[in-house]
């Protein structure tokens, strides 16, 4: 009765396919107000006065400001620097100043236009470079939110041993998550004084924790429920804390339910994006292509508040040297304060930025050595026994060479490359053709000791009538959490998939399984449930159950196991595997328990008149340990690839002179359509991980890391243009070609 490895149907699929599934804005809440937010029009300064138009009828409007906050005015995250509402000092444009509610959403927006804010504007700092000059200090004494350094071997000696040294600078921009459902939250107070939040969220317990200091409440007086969530990609990891605070503040003041549903413009202008970054590489290699020194400098723009920037930077630098072994490495990372809307979590979490640079640097090195980029990679790629930049020895589940071999043969890489060279040799052809390659790795789960600090819990409830229910805080946001967790439990119990129910993530009903982020749900939470299921099975055996188990026999043994109780819970808590060590101070040790690996070949064509890039083929192989549900894994790989092809070629965030996104619309922030995507060739590789359930590692973020450098490599192959900045728009290609013709 095997379920793991089957493409079992998505549990919540039928509800989503019929319009029955309820997203937050689909709930009808009696007597509800619609909440909207007044945001600062300037990037930096002081609020001198807020004026309410005296001729406007304010009777039907409820307004809440920082003065209405019963507890502390901050949104709890790594630091407590970000206010829920500005009291005095504005740190970025679009910063929330007050919230108001009206029973009609259009009227609520109308009321906003009758409020005038008078500021004393200060000169803002809008770029990282400006912040580093340090003329105006926004944070600490140097505008650096966080600095990390990784050091291995002796880099200076490494450069002395090198035959060739290659130096390059890379730049990547903001990227908008662009989940199709905008952020939204509902809040109300129950008769017993419980504050309830329900919304489009990835992390119910993050929201729960953030409400306690704001409203000076005991944990049991706050309840957070996930509504069906229309995509997250990291964009609903931390920002919902803010929206929940706003909705709750209004609901408590109005003594009525409040819904805060962002429209697309507000969501894009005001909420978090991927951190823009500048990455500098200086690499020493021998003439036969062995890496001997990597010196890497990573700079990320954090925006106005700390949010999750230190951990984004951490993951960024831990992936900055690529999936390659090098004896001498120095990586310095800094995340910088600017007066721009704070950046935050986005699928890949710092790794897509640094892996774009690391992989394109391999192309630069290969070109300099006049060496085949495949052989250069094969010479240096991680294998069993390799030692990473942090000194971690890779002991198991290293699929790097395997995935590379698969894509090379499936794509006929070398054959295509010479075909394209012939095509490009002809002056009369209307296009240039190119083929490019990349290989990446992605650390699964929280970085370093993160999982140990989280102490996640997840469990299964055995009800006396034989109901089996998973209790976990892991959210279904489209990736398939509900289905894969049920498959793992079904297989461990040796019962059909359909017998497993999954509880809604609701802080009053499920234990804290940690956030739904970091490619950790299947490996970490799935692992806990796997253990819990084994204990549950033992209890059923003791109660007389025999396999193959019938529903009647399950009910009988469940009743016997429960005795007088309605149900029994089998809950497991995360414990650190004994052989994993990490030193937070020195950044030495096992940065992640295990890594997933991917290789990709992109075959593309560039129009010689319009410079439009058409991706003709994507061939990828990804090592996920074990595909619990191959269809869902494919969905992650293809969907993540599409999002990253957008990052590489289409998605251009235009920032105005206040540091705010100007093209905050799906009309001119271009994400891929069905016509922009080729049919992709996906191979799932399974190098099992001994500590993952059934060998599973993570897959959520891995596909986001790899397409951009493969695209840039293919463009380099097609045109000889080394495009070190994303996105590679037609106008940038045109400019680069013009510049190269000049020089």
């Amino acid at each position, binding site marked *: 009765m095997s379920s793991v490895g089957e493409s079992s149907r998505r549990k919540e*699929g039928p509800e989503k396919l019929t319009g029955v*599934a309820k997203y937050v804005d689909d709930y009808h809440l009696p007597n509800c107000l619609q909440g909207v937010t007044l945001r600062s029009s300037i990037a930096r300064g002081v609020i001198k006065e807020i004026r309410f138009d005296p001729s406007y009828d304010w009777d039907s409007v409820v307004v809440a400001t920082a003065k209405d906050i019963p507890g502390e005015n901050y949104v709890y995250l790594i630091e407590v620097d970000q206010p829920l509402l500005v009291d005095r000092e504005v740190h970025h444009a679009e910063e929330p100043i007050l919230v108001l509610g009206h029973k009609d959403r259009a009227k609520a927006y109308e009321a906003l236009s009758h409020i005038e804010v008078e500021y004393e504007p200060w000169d803002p700092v809008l770029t990282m470079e400006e912040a580093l000059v340090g003329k105006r200090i926004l944070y600490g004494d140097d505008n650096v939110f966080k600095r990390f350094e990784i050091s291995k071997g002796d880099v200076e000696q490494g450069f002395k041993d090198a035959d060739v040294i290659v130096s390059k600078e890379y730049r990547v921009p903001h990227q908008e998550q662009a989940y199709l459902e905008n952020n939204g939250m509902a809040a109300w107070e129950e008769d017993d004084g419980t504050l309830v939040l329900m919304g489009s969220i990835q992390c119910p317990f993050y929201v729960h924790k953030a409400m306690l200091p704001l409203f000076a409440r005991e944990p049991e007086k706050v309840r957070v429920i996930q509504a069906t969530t*229309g*995509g997250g990609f990291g964009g609903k990891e931390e920002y919902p804390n803010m929206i929940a605070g706003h909705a709750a503040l209004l609901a408590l003041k109005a003594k009525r339910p409040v819904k805060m549903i962002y429209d697309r413009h507000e969501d894009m202008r005001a909420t978090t994006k991927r951190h823009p970054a500048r990455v500098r590489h200086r690499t020493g290699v021998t003439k036969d292509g062995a890496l001997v020194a990597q010196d890497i400098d990573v700079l990320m723009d954090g925006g106005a508040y700390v949010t999750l920037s230190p951990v984004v930077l951490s993951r960024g630098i831990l992936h900055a040297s690529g999936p390659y072994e090098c004896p001498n490495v120095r990586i310095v990372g800094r995340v910088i304060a600017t007066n721009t809307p704070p950046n935050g979590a986005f699928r890949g979490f710092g790794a897509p930025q640094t892996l774009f640079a690391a992989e394109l640097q391999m192309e630069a090195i290969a070109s300099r050595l006049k060496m085949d980029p495949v052989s250069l990679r094969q010479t240096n790629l991680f294998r069993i026994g390799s030692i990473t930049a942090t000194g971690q020895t890779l002991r198991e589940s290293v699929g790097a060479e395997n995935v590379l071999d698969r894509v090379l043969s499936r794509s006929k890489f070398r054959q295509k490359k010479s075909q394209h060279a012939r095509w490009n040799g002809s002056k009369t052809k209307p296009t240039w053709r190119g083929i490019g390659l990349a290989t990446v790795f992605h650390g699964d789960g929280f970085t370093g000791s993160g999982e140990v600090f989280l102490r996640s819990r997840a469990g299964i409830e055995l009800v006396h009538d034989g109901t089996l229910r998973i209790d976990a805080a892991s959210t279904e946001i489209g990736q398939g959490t509900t289905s894969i967790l049920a498959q793992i439990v079904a297989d461990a119990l040796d019962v059909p998939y359909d017998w497993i129910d999954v509880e809604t993530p609701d802080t009053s009903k499920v234990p804290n399984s940690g956030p739904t982020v970091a490619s950790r749900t299947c490996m970490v939470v799935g692992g806990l449930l796997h253990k819990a299921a084994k204990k549950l099975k033992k209890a059923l055996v003791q109660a007389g159950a025999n396999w193959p188990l019938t529903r009647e026999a399950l009910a009988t043994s469940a009743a016997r196991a429960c005795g007088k109780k309605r149900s029994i819970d089998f809950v497991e808590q995360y414990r650190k595997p004994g052989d994993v060590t990490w030193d937070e101070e020195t950044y030495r040790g096992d940065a992640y328990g295990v890594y997933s690996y991917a290789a990709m070949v992109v075959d593309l064509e560039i129009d010689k008149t319009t410079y439009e890039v058409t991706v003709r083929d994507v061939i990828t192989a990804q090592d996920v340990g074990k595909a619990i549900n191959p269809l869902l894994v494919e969905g992650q790989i*293809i969907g993540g690839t599409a999002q990253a092809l957008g990052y590489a070629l289409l998605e251009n965030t235009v920032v105005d002179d206040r540091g705010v996104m100007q093209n905050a619309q*799906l009309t001119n922030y271009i994400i891929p359509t*069905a016509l922009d995507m080729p049919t992709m060739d996906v191979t799932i590789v399974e190098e099992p991980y001994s500590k993952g359930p059934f060998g599973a590692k993570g897959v959520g973020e891995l596909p986001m890391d790899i397409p951009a450098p493969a695209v840039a490599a293919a463009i380099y192959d097609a045109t000889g243009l080394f495009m070190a900045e994303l996105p590679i728009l037609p106008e940038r290609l045109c400019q680069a070609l013009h510049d190269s013709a000049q020089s």
Partner: protein
Amino acid sequence: MIQLKVNGKQRSFRGRRFKRLIDVLREDFDLTGTKEGCGEGECGACSVFVDGELVNSCLIPVYQADGARVETVEALGDPDALDPLQASFLTEGGAQCGICTPGMLMSAWAFVRDGGRDDLDAIRTALAGNLCRCTGYQHIVSSVVATVRDKTRTSARRRTKKK
């Protein structure tokens, strides 16, 4: 008063004539299957049929649909009895987060209804007005392919029986 025939049922609306059709469907008729993604006709999440024509309901003032037939995702199957198109989306992985799904189904429905075949380019063109951020579209395209093939097989069987 504005009269509409929504999913085969006669409905009437009293209120602002310029209220968007999507808001009337969701707020006044409690048909929340139709979703809003962008509010400016770009993402297609609010796609419905008006007199059989595929439209973005966020761009239509309700008075323009006065007297019209409107079909929404709720006109397809129920969770316990999915329409063949919905069933294909379930088996092929065409829905992930589900928010673009109702609109995507309407576009796919129009394509299948109008005799679309299992031609990948034609399917991608038919779906190009509907944005999806989860799937990369491939499993949506294969869902439509599966529906079209099943339909062809079914009608071929019917023809055979008639003989």
